[in-house]
Each structure stands twice: as C-alpha cells, then as structure tokens.
C-alpha cells in the first residue's frame, strides 16, 4: 500500500510553545487513521500543516507526493477538510452551501448538481436540501459537513472531531458514514478525536498525540498487546488441567516461546509472534485439558491513559 500522506520531522513552534514536535507519520491509502489526543495536543495544527494552511517551522509534509505549501491548489483538490466546529452560511440553503463549494472547486453546474444530490442522498439530507442551514440541528450540520467533504470526490479526508457534541444516534450515523466512505469510495481518512470509544470502533491504526509528540503509533490491538506485556511482546494466559511440569516443558518447547511463567493457577507464555494455535496444540499434546486461553491485551482507554500519564 502506498503512503498517501507522509510527514517527516514536522514541527510547528508558536513563540515559546511547541505545538507539533518532530512528527513522523505515514498514512496508507485506504486506511482510517485515528489521531488521538487531548485538546491542545497539536492534532489540528498537524492537519492545518498537511493542508498547507499553516507553515511548518521545520520538517516536511507530503500529500500524494505533493508539497502542501508549494502545490497548495493541487493538494486542496485531493483533500477535503472537515474542521472542528464547522460552520455554514446559515442564510443559504444546504444545496446552496454545497453549490458554493462545488463552484470553488470549478465543478460545472450540471455535474455539480449530480454530485450534490448524490452527496445529500448519501448522508440522508435529501429532503432538507433547500432548507436554510440555519434551521439545521447539530447532527444535521455534521452530516452536511460530510456531504461537503464528498463534493470534490477527494482521495483523502481530514476530519477534525467529527462526532463532537453529537447524541449517540448522531455519532453512529457519522461513524457509519465514515466507514461507508472508505468501503465504497476507497477514501483514506485521518480522524482526529479525543473520544476513545468511537476511535476504537472505526480506526485501523491510531497515533496517540500528547503535547505535540506522537507517543504511540500502531494498530489498537497491537498497542494493547504491547502495553499489556509491558513491552515484552505478546503474553498469552493459559489455564490447563493438570498444570504439570511436562506441560510447562512442552510449552517452552514450542518454537518462538521466550518464556513461561507461573502466575497463581495460570501460566503466562511470552513470545514475539502469534502462537496461540501452537500453544493450544502443545497443551493437548502434553495430555492436559485446555481450560483457558487468552491473549493479554489492554483496552484503548487504558492505552491512552498510560501514555497520557507517562508524558
């Protein structure tokens, strides 16, 4: 998979404050990446630099190989941005707002009409197309914002806190829409949020951002496992009967096992790779009954708090 968005040592300093500290990030095509972090961590600043709306103090950013500062227009044609607290022109209808976006993207009237209708249909706002946006609820505005993202048929979308202040139903709708975008249009999505449970639901990979630094990067499962083992790789809990020395020896003999520890009534097997099938086979091979087999992992909330606290 090609890296569609890439940053190298990207830094932004505002006077005394370092908002983004030597960030190295890659986004692969077709993935949903979650930029996780508390408010003020530098997530929005990173997105602004990727869009070319803010000049980096140091380092580079590239979107589809293009420099957002130099090839600003080209980048803005392939990237859509949904800002935090997105706003619309309240006196103009939903259709009108989207038509303005289409016009700024130099999309002809006829084609724009088709795109707008399609986008509104996709987000479920077709019936309200000609109502003034001033009459929309927050959930509807967020959906309209997603429709706006779709108008230019972008390859990449940067969504800054898209589910903020939405009711649970609204949140579901937005998350479903995001998944649909990736599924049906193959879009690459960078999602920035501090709402862990939602990020967990749809992101392939996450990056935890604290005070401008990326303190963790990877798949959620991967990170959870790493954290659970305190950096020792993967730890599998095995509960078996009987817990004999033969069993322990058999487990140690499995190729790739680094160590077997005894923890009360369970055995903790640490390894680098995924070995659960082999371990299960080893248990039955040693004549014991397998009662419990679990890969130790930690939930996203704990991952987040652990890294957050460490900074």
């Amino acid at each position, binding site marked *: 998979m090609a890296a569609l968005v890439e940053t190298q040592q990207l830094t932004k300093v505002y006077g005394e404050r370092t908002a983004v500290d030597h960030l190295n990030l890659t986004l692969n095509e077709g993935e949903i990446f979650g930029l996780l972090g508390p408010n003020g961590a530098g997530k*929005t600043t990173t997105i602004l630099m990727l869009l070319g709306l803010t000049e980096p103090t140091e380092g580079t950013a590239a979107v589809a190989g293009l420099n957002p500062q130099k090839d600003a227009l080209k980048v803005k044609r392939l990237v859509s941005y949904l800002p935090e607290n997105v706003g619309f022109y309240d006196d103009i209808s939903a259709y009108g707002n989207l038509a303005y976006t289409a016009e700024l993207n130099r999309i002809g009237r006829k084609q724009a009409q088709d795109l707008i209708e399609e986008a509104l249909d996709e987000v479920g706002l077709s019936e309200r197309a000609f109502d003034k946006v001033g009459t929309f609820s927050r959930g509807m505005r967020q959906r309209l914002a997603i429709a706006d993202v779709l108008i230019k048929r972008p390859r990449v979308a940067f969504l800054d806190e898209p589910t903020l202040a939405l009711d649970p139903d609204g949140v579901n709708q937005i998350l479903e829409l995001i998944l649909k975008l990736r599924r049906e249009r193959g879009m690459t999505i960078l999602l920035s949020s501090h709402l862990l449970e939602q990020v967990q639901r749809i992101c392939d990979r996450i990056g935890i951002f604290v005070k401008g630094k990326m303190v963790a990067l990877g798949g959620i499962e991967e990170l959870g496992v790493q954290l659970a083992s305190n950096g020792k790789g993967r730890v599998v809990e095995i509960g078996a009967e009987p817990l004999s020395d033969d069993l322990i020896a058999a487990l140690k003999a499995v190729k790739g096992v680094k160590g077997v520890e005894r923890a009360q009534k369970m055995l903790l097997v640490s390894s680098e790779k995924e070995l659960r099938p082999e371990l299960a086979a080893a248990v039955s091979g040693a004549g014991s009954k397998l009662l419990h087999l679990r890969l130790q992992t930690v939930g996203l909330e704990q991952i987040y708090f652990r890294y957050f606290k460490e900074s």
Partner: protein
Amino acid sequence: MRAIPVIRKELADHLGSRRFAILFFVIVIAGVLATYQAGQSIRQDVTKDPEQTFVFLRLFTSGNPVSFVSFVAFLGPLLGIAFGFDAINSEQQRGTLGRLLSQPVYRDDVINGKFLAGLGIISVTMLCIFFIVAGLGLRMIGVPPTADELIRILFFLVISIIYVGFWLALAMLFSLLTKQAATSALASLAVWLFMAIFVTIFAGFIAGVVYPTTDNSPAQQVLDHVGLQQNIARISPAALYGEATSAILDPEERTTSGLVLLSDAQAMVPGALSLDQSLLLVWPDITATIALTTICFGVAYYTFLRQEVRTL
C-alpha cells in the same frame, strides 16, 4: 479569474441582505429629498435669470439644507463601512473560514473577491441613485444636461465610488484585525467621525500653533495659516473628496484653496473652466484618494495573507 465564485456569492449575499435594503432605502429617500429641494431652488433661479449656465449640475450641488453632494460625502462612508466591517470576522465567527480556505482557491482570491463584490454593490447603489436624481431633476427643471455636464457627472460618480471604496477597504482592514464584527464597525465609524468632524478642528489647532494669527496679522501669516490648515485637513479623504467634487461639479470654481486674495479675485477672467482644467485643478485630490484606498486595501491584503489560520 479564480475569484469569480467568491465575487458571485458575496454579491448575491449583499444584494439579498437586509443591510442593503435599509441603506438603499435611506439613500434613495435622502437623494429624492435633496433633489426635490435642489429642483425647486433651480426653478426659481432660472425663472429669475434665464441666461444661467450649468443648470443641470446644480441639481447635485445646491440644496437646502443639504445638497446631494454633501449627503453623499456624509453617507457614502457609511455605505462603504456597511459592506466591509464584517467581511472576514463574520466568516471566522460562523466557522466557515476554515472550510473556505481548504478549497482550491488562493487566499488572495478570497479577499480580492470580497473587495470587488463590495465595490460592485457600491457602484450599483451609486448608479441607481444618480439615475434617480438625474431623472427626477430633469423632470422638475426641464433643462437637459449638456455633454460637458454629463461627463462631469460621470467623473463625480467615479470619484464617489473610489471614495466609498476607501471606507470599504478600511472597514475590511478592521474586520481582519478584530474578532467581533461590532468592534470593527465601531472602529470604522470612529475613524469616520474623526475624519468628518475632528480633523478640521485638529488642523486648525495645529495651524494656529505654527502660524498664530490675530485680526492684525500680516497677510502672509494668514495665508500660511490657512495653507497649513488645509494641508493637514487633507489627510482626511473626506476633505479630499469635498475638494475634488466641488471643483468637478462647479465649473466656476478655480481654486481649491479656501482663501482668495481680493487682488487675485479682481484679476480673474470671468467664466467657467473647461472640464480638463477643472480636472487639472483637483487631480492631486483624486490621486490622493486613489492612493489612500489602495494603501488601505494593500495593508488588508497583506495582513490576510500572512495571518495564521488559527488566529484568523
């Protein structure tokens, strides 16, 4: 031109706005009243003295208590300010600026577009009111304009648009520097008040300090005093506009100076100036107004382009 979508949208917004409706209404009423007054007085004058020249122009310059020209000089800035004071900060407030700037448009297209749309709506308004005045006036006095008068009126129109454009640029600059639209509106109005009222007082004061005069002062001293006073007052675009329009619309006026020595007045050849001579008289004023407008817009342009999106 990439700014065209911005121009179109802003112009559409302005035309449909309540702001425009109110201002237009006020201007039309004021224009009609001023013209009516002017028309009446011209009729009386012409009845008394049928040999008068440049009658049509007087539609614009005469009037009791206020002539059309003076009310444009007074209300024009309001028109400019009204369409500029929330140009940028309202986008910020509404949260639309981030979305706007993430589209493939350059930042300068946005500010140029807004300024041009503002000028557009101002031009439309001025043109409308001019036609109303001309039409109503013609109906009242029955004397059609000569070609010379018509061209002078055209120049008046253009100079008025540039003058109002200055206030538009100023208001837009304030809209960039402040977060709240109300603040930029107040700042613009404060500048306007200063220019309209306080500059002359201020100029007089300074001139009085540098060239103090009494009733018995020598002529040179008085001339210097008045000269300095005028020059300081010329900081104000309102003063420049006043000078420019009075010469353009009154072909008999020969000098922009407020003070004419009796000996000079007696030496003058009676008659009116031709158009090019009138223009020559006030060309510095016109140039200065254009310069002020350009500088104002230039500063706004530069500020907008350099500002961080976060603070925008």
